[in-house]
């Protein structure tokens, strides 16, 4: 280390003060409600190499700790004092990961040398494109997701590029908000520059330069110390998104987590091909791309909350993401909804880490509720009313350290809701119910966190409800060590004449007057054999309405009435007769077991292999075609050893001449 341990801590505090001042400056001066409400923005300081060494802890998005700016920084030929650069193109440098995110960076010079960059992003409410807010699962190309700017100088030696700003504003739906938010970003990086200069004056430029490298090195060393405490081994985990597009088939996300000494390799080979929907995650194959590392950061931080959260911790890991897959798509795949995929991928990483540290990390978190928007009209005046209502999140998974948090938690812990009273005064709708759902948390020695349920009545024609990031109505949160999976999520329309319509993962729903929609998230999964849960905790759960007496009896072997009166004798008898389940690392819900009975590991591996040989633009089509053929296959012809997949692929090749000739071209090129 170049810096003494006392000075380094002081430098860390001063660098954090700069990053946090940037965040508060941005937050204070931003225009859009979206920024203030969702805090979907970041600020930070990065080393000349692009690695983040300081970012705020109590304000802003939690995902981008350690985002690597190198890709974007390198696309600018040369920097001069007073320059400010921006990009929102997911395919130029792979810093931005969907078009609404406008990233900004400003070089901080001292004596003609770049000491650091002040950086950050804001999620703009709209960047133009096919749909308002620029994001839709149904988009198939990035061109539909709004105007894009490759890395470029917004300000050159202090002079604003007005033409660039005008072009941006011409193409977006709410230019005033974008303009105001862009100004807030400029104010933030200027604050960062001024305060870094003050820091350099105070400590000297060599001390600061050395301190930056040391802060990254210390974080790496701390991360490696955490990893060293984990057992060596390969930990493989798979989970799915319910659908690869509207009315689609599942998306497989696969991870082989290889822990070796103080380092980690995360191999995502086996994950789905790139999709003809907006669920792709643009990583450019960067072995430490932040979208691949969010779950890693959460796990390491949970294992040791005192580690510094900066880019240094990422150096302890390397990812493998084959090109042309959902985790490393090629241009022009749409990427707007990468947050849904990224959220599930966090769960996949948590799943693999759970096997490495089952006594310290939780099982599956709920996920899948969605973020609800309502567009409706005032019944009397006819006035349009549109608002984001609430994120509907479910609970965290249980762990050896206790129950999962109810209603939200784990990797959705950063989301905030809107009060019912505010929603009802802003939008002419009536909430019928908002609360936790009994029995939705997976049973376990440690119970999974409960689901949240939202039920709303609407009153006018042409009402549209959108539920962004809907998922988990098929595959539920996974349990562990005998704990049960969480409940799946539900989206239901109740009509005035008493019909219940299951909406599944539909994310845009038109409603009629008197209709009611109920959105129920999934529940968190349980950990450990529920029959080992202390009786008094089960009684407490029943008294608190978290578990019904029927479920207490069926899942926990505890006979207790609604008032908490315990039938001790029957309870003892039930528990004595209980045969402990065979303890496995993971437990899955029935839908997943049924799916995997057909789509065995061998079958999916055969599909992955076949698709990896095909030109990228054919892959999603072939995947869907194979799924159709396998679905139509008689039971007797299913072997689960990959043979039926290979046969289906051959049949498709034979029936689609274009595919075969395209493959020939690919082969010739190689």
């Amino acid at each position, binding site marked *: 280390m170049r810096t003494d*341990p*006392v*000075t380094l*801590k*002081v430098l860390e*505090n*001063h660098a954090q*003060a700069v990053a946090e*001042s*940037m965040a508060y*400056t941005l*937050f*204070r*001066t931003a*225009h859009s*409600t979206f920024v203030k409400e969702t805090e979907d923005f970041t600020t930070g300081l990065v080393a000349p190499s692009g690695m983040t060494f300081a970012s705020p802890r109590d304000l802003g998005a939690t995902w981008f700790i350690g985002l690597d700016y190198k890709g974007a920084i390198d696309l600018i030929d040369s920097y001069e004092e007073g320059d400010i650069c921006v990009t929102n193109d997911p395919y130029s440098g792979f810093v931005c990961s969907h078009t609404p995110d406008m990233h900004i960076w400003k070089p901080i010079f001292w004596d003609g040398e770049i000491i650091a960059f002040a950086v950050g992003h804001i999620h703009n409410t709209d960047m133009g494109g096919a749909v308002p807010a620029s994001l839709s699962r149904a988009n198939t190309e990035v061109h539909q997701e709004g105007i894009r700017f490759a890395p470029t100088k917004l300000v050159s030696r202090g002079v604003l590029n007005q033409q660039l700003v005008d072009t941006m504003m011409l193409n977006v739906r709410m230019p005033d908000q974008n303009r*105001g938010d862009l100004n807030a970003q400029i*104010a933030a990086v200027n*604050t960062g520059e001024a305060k870094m200069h003050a820091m350099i004056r*105070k400590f000297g430029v060599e*001390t600061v330069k050395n301190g930056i490298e040391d802060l990254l090195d210390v974080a790496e*060393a*701390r991360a490696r*110390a955490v990893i060293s405490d984990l057992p060596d081994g390969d930990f493989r985990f798979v989970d799915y998104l319910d659908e690869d597009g509207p009315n689609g088939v599942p998306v497989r996300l696969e991870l082989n987590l290889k822990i070796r000494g103080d380092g980690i390799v995360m191999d995502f080979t086996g994950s789905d091909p790139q999709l003809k929907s907006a669920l792709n995650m643009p990583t450019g194959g960067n072995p430490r791309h932040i979208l691949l590392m969010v779950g890693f*950061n*959460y796990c390491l931080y*949970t294992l040791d*909350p005192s580690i510094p959260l900066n880019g240094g911790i990422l150096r302890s890991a390397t990812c493998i993401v084959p090109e042309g897959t959902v985790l490393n798509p090629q241009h022009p795949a749409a990427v707007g909804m990468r947050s849904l995929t990224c959220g599930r991928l966090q769960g996949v990483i*948590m799943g693999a880490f759970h096997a490495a540290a089952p006594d310290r*990390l*939780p099982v599956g978190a709920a996920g899948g509720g969605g973020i609800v928007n309502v567009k409706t009209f005032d019944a009397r005046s006819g006035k349009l009313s549109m608002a984001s209502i609430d994120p509907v999140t479910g609970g*965290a998974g249980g762990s050896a*350290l*206790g129950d999962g*948090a109810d*209603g*939200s*938690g*784990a*990797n959705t*812990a*950063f*989301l*905030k*809701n809107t*009060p*019912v*009273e*505010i929603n*009802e*005064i802003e939008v002419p709708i*009536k*909430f019928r*119910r*908002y*609360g*936790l759902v009994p029995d939705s948390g997976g049973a376990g020695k440690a119970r999974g966190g409960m689901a949240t349920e939202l039920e709303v009545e609407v009153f006018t024609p042409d009402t549209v409800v959108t539920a962004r990031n809907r998922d988990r109505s098929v595959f539920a949160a996974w349990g562990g060590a005998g704990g049960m999976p969480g409940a799946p999520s539900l989206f239901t329309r109740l009509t005035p004449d008493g019909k219940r319509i299951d909406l599944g993962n539909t994310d845009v729903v038109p409603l009629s007057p008197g209709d009611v929609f109920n959105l129920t998230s999934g529940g968190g999964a349980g950990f450990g054999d529920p029959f080992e849960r202390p009786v008094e905790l089960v009684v407490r759960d029943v*008294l608190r*309405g978290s578990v019904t007496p029927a479920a207490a009896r069926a899942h926990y072997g505890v006979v207790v009435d609604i*008032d908490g009166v315990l039938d001790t004798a029957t309870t003892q008898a039930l528990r004595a007769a209980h045969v402990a389940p065979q303890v496995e690392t993971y437990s899955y819900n029935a839908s997943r077991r049924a799916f995997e009975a057909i789509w065995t590991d061998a079958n999916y591996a055969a599909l992955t292999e076949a698709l990896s040989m095909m030109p990228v633009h054919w892959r999603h089509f072939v995947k869907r075609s194979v799924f159709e053929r396998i679905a139509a296959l008689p039971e007797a012809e299913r072997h689960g050893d990959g043979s039926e997949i290979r046969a289906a692929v051959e049949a498709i090749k034979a029936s689609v001449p274009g595919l075969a000739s395209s493959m020939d071209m690919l082969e010739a090129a190689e």
Partner: protein
Amino acid sequence: MSYRVGVDIGGTFADFCAFDETIGTMGTVKVLTTPDRPGQEVIDGLKALEDRFGIKPADISYFTHGTTVGINAIIMRKGIRLAMFTTENFCDVLELARLKMPDPYHLLSSRPEPLVTRDLVFGVSERILADGSVDTPLDPESLKAAVDAARARGAEGIVISFLHSYRNPAHELEAKRLISEIAPELHVFCSHQVRPIIREYERTSTAVIHGYVQPRVSQYLSALQDALGGLGVAPEPMITKSNGGVMSVEVGKSACVEMLLSGTAAGVMGAAFVARAAGEDKVLSLDIGGTSADVAIITGGQPGYGMNETVGDFPIYVPTVSVTSIGEGGGSIARIDTAGLLTVGPDSAGSTPGPAAYGRGGTNATITDAFVSLGLLDLSTLGYGMVSVDRNKAVAVIEPLAHKLGSTLEATAEGIIGIAVSGMFREVTKLCSRRGIDVQEFSLLAFGGGGPMMACFLARDLGMKRVIVPQSPGVLSALGGLTADVRNDFTETAYYDLDAANTPRMRETIDRLIEKARHWMVEEQHYHGTPVFHAAGEMRYRGQSFEIEVPIDPAAVAAGDVSPITEAFHAEHRRLYGHADTDAPIQIIAINFVVTGHSVKPTLSKSDPEPRDVAPEKTIHAHVDGARREVALYRRSELTPGARFGSPCVIAQDDTTTIVPTGFTGTVDSHGNLILTLTETAHAH
């Protein structure tokens, strides 16, 4: 003889400040708190005042008191067993809160268990809509069932919090009436009566905190009244409030939620009083105790106010003097982390066992120990002779850290101070960015037992030019109570556009609030002077979700003219956020109303003699700013107005020690405040 006596009870000490109205001087004492016998410390302190200054209870003409009984009940979870009734199908308001977890990076983070657990929450069939209309009438049968269930589960009290009760309280009132018939033994609290704000979680949380502590606090206040009466203290005690005001003890018995954060608020009021007297327009107050370090912004002699504060683990929405925590105080523990770096806090040795140097069982190295080991604090006994300082004990806990770092004792101790100060630097810098202020335009006013110890170091780091240390920094909260006005806040949710068409509604609201405020002042508070009214609106551009408070001129509202309010809002928005949208419609979310009854303020004696250099009592040797130096030691009592001195120096007094590193010059102003001016900006790091 006539004395005004202020008492503030803190974690370790109860502070007493007696102001002699005849000659304008102050006497102060501290006694240890008696947590198992609340109230005893008041009797102890009054005895000490009599012993030390000859102040007899019968000579006391005005008595203010700040208590921690309420906040302790919450932190230690020793309130009453409380049930809660909500609108049916909305029972999880406390469980869900606002969803966000305390530590969103931590996969196991969870919200603290609510003060009312879900087994004591019961839904009642009723529903009022956003416009105040009744959708479902209150069903008496469902209410009765809820009462039976609450009783069966041992509830001692019930909080009623129904949706939209801020708009139409009829169902809450009806429920309260029915409960008093069915179960007269239960305490009952309506959310709209505690604080009628929109946002169900915030209103409910505030009401629950209130109900949880009210019976305990009320009991305590009655016992205090008896004790004071027994001693012959004639005036009715005034209780300090979180809003920086006071109220009579009788009013306090039913307004417990308003006094929970009074300790920190009274300190800031004391600081504001000193700032006004010293003619300081921009002041950052720094209050450091054994377990906390807080700052507040005081401009034009007035503190800022906020609504969203935290008590224990829970948010509370009552107007409160804005205070920001910047650290854990003098008891913060220094350690070496697994990467070999020195860290300070967040855990604290608190007041028990406290720093190792205090010899009360502390075994960890704290910030205070760092100062002691450098030779800067073992100069006198602290806390009126109740604490003695042992340098050997401090050295013994710092040395192992120095050994691990491969460094010297002195460098390690200075490192601990430097890291603690850099942590405070970080928090203050953040606060200034949040408020959009330039800290270098401010003076730092230090108080609390540890404020004067660290203030110069922090000021130097922040580039602040001036540090002010008042006469009795250790008992400023007690003084703050004495300087506080009688004050109360009222609010009504509005939630409509700010335009001429709505002025009749605004006017009705203002009239109602004036009537309530007048009634409170005259009928409840028995105030005889002329109260001052101040109306303000919580406003925002339509579509925003955060409000800013802007004064409302009732005359303009009466005239049907909202333009002065509109302009004031745009101006305030521009001042706070750097931009305004003059075409956008403005919403008024709530109308707030403050009523103030002026209290007689102490008038401090003042003298302006010619400046003169003073000689230290002695010169000591201590380690400061990287070297062993000769350090002047002064007694605070010798530093009277006009005194002038250099640095480095240490100034000892009963309630604190002021440490002045190199680069400062000191003077004493006409009120006896130390004014420490930074003359050299460069310093070693």
